[in-house]
């Protein structure tokens, strides 16, 4: 099944796109939905008494219902729109963390967190006198049960965990983490940015307290993120950003706030991206997560098998295939990843190189940076072959200069 035909960029650019972990390409269906929105529905929401504005509002609110169903939230009021996962996490750090943490409380995150689920907690911990503790990975690039149980303690109030690492592709056992954290009285924030494009998320089944993701990593437009939160927790929290549309009554010195979800959605929202996210969900559901998994399993197994044959590569991924998603980090021994990425680019192979917004993880692994190939439903075995061929070129260009390997 080659889904490339649904993605116009592949008609316009002759590229091997292996950077879906950064952002995915967009299918025609999503692009058309946005186009149609501006041509037929555009008006500001929650404002006008005229029917166009009411229709735009309905479109917007129906998308919220679609997202609630997509992740099996109990209520549409548990779905808050944000700019991206980063903003969702900042909202939680400020509106939940700052208000609930006290001196000597503990926040536990993993060493594989993206800076967006790490830097806000540093600030909140500094401001409240709480301690920021880390769960470290083992030699298989995974969090062991022992590590989880030794770091989450009776003093832990918040656990922040990425479902899938954006560097290692490790799928964390969030089921275990959530159950254990709840036993210890902590709430759990799941960063699903790298998992929701690839696997079914059911927030009630997981019993996650909060869950965040970005639309643009799952076929939707840029600039739209989602925060899911249990209603009873969101109700107790203060707003994060103040302004229009999030209020009930405003007096000269006092304001009362709107109920959920508007309380957390100040100002005019990114309506085009929200309807685009609705179209992306339709696209994913139309193909189905089972099919997506089947496509990705075949390509990623093929990629791992072929990358392992290149003895000049260091691979940073778990040997347990069932615990690995669709991101593969690697280095050519002795060659800096930026040079590798530039040579790959000359072969029109797009990979990311750098620290992937995960400097503490890089430091823990004893490296500066990696190249990262990340795959999605439109990739093919041919893409993997192109990657391998480009890596051979990079190695051959550099090999006579490489020392000490």
């Amino acid at each position, binding site marked *: 099944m080659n889904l490339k035909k649904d993605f116009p960029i592949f008609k316009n650019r002759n590229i091997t796109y292996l950077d879906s972990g950064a952002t995915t390409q967009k299918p025609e269906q999503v692009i058309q939905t946005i186009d149609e929105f501006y041509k037929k529905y555009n008006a500001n929401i929650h404002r006008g008494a005229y029917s166009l504005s009411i229709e735009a509002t309905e479109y917007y609110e129906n998308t919220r219902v679609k997202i609630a169903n997509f992740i099996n939230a109990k209520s549409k009021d548990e779905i808050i729109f944000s700019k991206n996962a980063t903003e969702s996490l900042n909202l939680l750090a400020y509106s939940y963390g700052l208000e609930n943490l006290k001196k000597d409380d503990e926040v536990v995150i993993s060493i594989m967190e993206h800076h967006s689920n790490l830097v806000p907690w540093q600030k909140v911990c500094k401001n409240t006198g709480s301690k920021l503790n880390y769960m470290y990975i083992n030699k298989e690039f995974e969090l062991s049960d022992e590590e989880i149980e030794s770091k989450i303690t009776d003093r832990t109030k918040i656990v922040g965990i990425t479902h899938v690492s954006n560097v290692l592709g490790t799928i964390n056992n969030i089921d275990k983490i959530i159950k254990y954290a709840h036993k210890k009285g902590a709430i759990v924030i799941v960063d699903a940015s790298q998992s929701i494009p690839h696997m079914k998320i059911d927030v009630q089944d997981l019993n996650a307290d909060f869950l965040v993701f970005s639309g643009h990593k799952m076929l939707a437009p840029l600039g739209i993120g989602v925060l899911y939160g249990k209603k009873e927790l969101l109700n107790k929290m203060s707003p994060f950003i103040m302004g229009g549309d999030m209020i009930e009554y405003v007096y000269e010195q006092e304001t009362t706030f709107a109920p959920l979800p508007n309380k957390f959605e100040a100002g005019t929202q990114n309506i085009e991206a929200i309807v685009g996210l609705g179209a992306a969900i339709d696209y994913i559901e139309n193909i189905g997560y089972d099919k997506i998994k089947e496509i990705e399993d075949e390509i990623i197994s093929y990629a791992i098998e072929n990358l392992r044959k290149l003895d000049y590569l260091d691979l940073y991924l778990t040997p347990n295939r069932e615990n690995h998603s669709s991101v593969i980090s690697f280095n050519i021994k002795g*060659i*800096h*990843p*930026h*040079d590798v990425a*530039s*040579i790959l*680019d*000359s072969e029109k192979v797009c990979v990311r*190189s*750098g*620290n992937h917004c995960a*400097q503490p993880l*890089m430091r823990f692994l004893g490296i*500066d*940076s990696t190249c990262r190939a990340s795959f999605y439903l439109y990739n093919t075995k041919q893409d993997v072959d192109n990657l391998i061929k480009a890596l051979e070129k990079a190695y051959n*260009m*550099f090999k006579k*200069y*490489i*020392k000490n390997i």
Partner: protein
Amino acid sequence: MEDLTEVYNELIMEHSMNSYNKKKLSNANFTSLGHNPNCGDEITLEVKLNGDIIEDMAFSGHGCAISQASTSVMIDTLKGKTIEEAKQIIKTFINMIKREITDEEELKKLEDAIAFQNVSNMPARVKCALLAWHTMEDIIEKKEKQGKGNIDCCH
């Protein structure tokens, strides 16, 4: 980039992988750290000045081939020059990478550093090529401030 060997040429490869300028100076009087936070490239530049003459230079650190080679070639180019000459060469190099100078005569003043001309065709790598040169600018600025400081205290 059509032909990558124009960027990853022999000179750049040799300097990046096996630079004789990668060492410590025992008598440096200026040191500065250059860092590209987005990519993690990090170099420490050491300079031994004798009056206005750059008597010796060395570097340590890590990064991609282009940043490492650019540092090493810069050292070869600037060693023995006066501060004023160095400032001119740095300006010419930066302008070459930004494609603001293409005049061959002008570029010849760069000596071996002209080997980086084609980096200007790779926008993603411009900052790698410029790291050392900006770091040297910092050192010159420090030196000039210090100079002024001395004059001030003589008043």
